[in-house]
């Protein structure tokens, strides 16, 4: 099998949704240590749709304060800067793609799984004292390639599903056989185009096969989170399967059962509220 350029498979790259400029400005500003509150308020205020999303999230039961926040400054106070950026990223990305017309692709199940993975990755990161914001974003976007495929090249993804059905194999293998690439490589192309950080792009690119490392990586977190939420069956997909686990990644995280219990409990407890807050 010859490897195929993901951009060739994706085809109409220029037709990919773009993230709101205000969100890009906000994420860029948040990377600086000296960013001022007024600058952040300005960045968000330029986009009324983003303002509405920020207020909706700040007033959602997920963040615990119902109906009290009416300004962006207030939303930043309630959510915190890091929560605000991850929440707005989730809102912007989930609102970027129209429902794909692709046989076999369930958009609601896609978002439910992605949000569950984001929550699980965030709680794992907190348990291990790693970057929980990056973990949330990478977990949310880990299967972005499948969404992009369903949206941009639905007939190709349908061929993948047909191959999987005919050959009784994992979807990842079917992608390789049919497309000559896979959703990890495609997702990385999209995430890079959207200017997400290199560690997030790397986690998307390798989340089914983490590369060797001396210490736990963001990719390890997403790899294990993906498997855990599949095992929890949170997407409610009848033929859901738990992907193979990379022993090296699992061993690097060195999780204990009590840590896993806490992470799984919090992930399950928060999933419905966050899905509702994001309207997915």
């Amino acid at each position: 099998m010859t490897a195929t350029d993901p951009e060739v498979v994706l085809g109409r790259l220029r037709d990919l949704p773009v993230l709101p400029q205000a969100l890009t400005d906000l994420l860029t500003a948040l990377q600086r240590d000296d960013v001022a509150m007024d600058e952040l308020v300005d960045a968000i205020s330029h986009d009324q749709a983003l303002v509405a999303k920020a207020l909706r999230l700040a007033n959602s039961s997920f963040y615990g304060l119902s109906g009290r926040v009416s300004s962006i400054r207030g939303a930043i106070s309630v959510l915190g800067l890091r929560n605000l950026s991850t929440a707005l990223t989730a809102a912007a990305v989930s609102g970027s793609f129209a429902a794909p017309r692709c046989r076999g692709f369930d958009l609601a199940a896609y978002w439910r799984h992605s949000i569950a993975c984001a929550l699980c990755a965030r709680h794992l990161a907190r348990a291990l004292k790693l970057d929980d914001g990056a973990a949330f974003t990478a977990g949310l976007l880990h299967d972005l390639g499948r969404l992009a495929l369903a949206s941009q090249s639905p007939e190709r993804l349908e061929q993948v599903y047909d191959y999987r059905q005919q050959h009784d194999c994992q979807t990842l293998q079917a992608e390789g056989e049919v497309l000559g690439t896979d959703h990890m490589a495609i997702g990385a192309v999209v995430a890079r185009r959207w200017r997400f950080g290199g560690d997030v792009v790397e986690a998307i690119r390798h989340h089914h096969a983490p590369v060797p490392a001396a210490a736990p990586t963001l990719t390890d977190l997403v790899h294990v989170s993906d498997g855990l939420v599949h095992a929890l069956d949170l997407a409610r997909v009848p033929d859901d399967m738990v992907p193979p686990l990379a022993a090296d990644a699992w061993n690097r995280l060195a999780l204990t059962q009590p840590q896993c219990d806490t992470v799984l409990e919090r992930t399950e407890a928060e999933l419905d509220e966050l899905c509702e807050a994001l309207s997915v």
Partner: protein
Amino acid sequence: MSHDHHTLDRPVETPPTQAVPEAEQRLTWLFRDSLRQQLIHPLLAVVRRYRERSVQ
């Protein structure tokens, strides 16, 4: 219950107990082979322990 990390000191996919069939029957075979060897995916084992604790 041990609170230690469950280290995986062997590959997750164990050697087959019989020849791997053609692709058309592979998943069914894997499922039956897992049952025969009383294997379970490590993360399913983690979730099972979590569920058992939740109902206590």
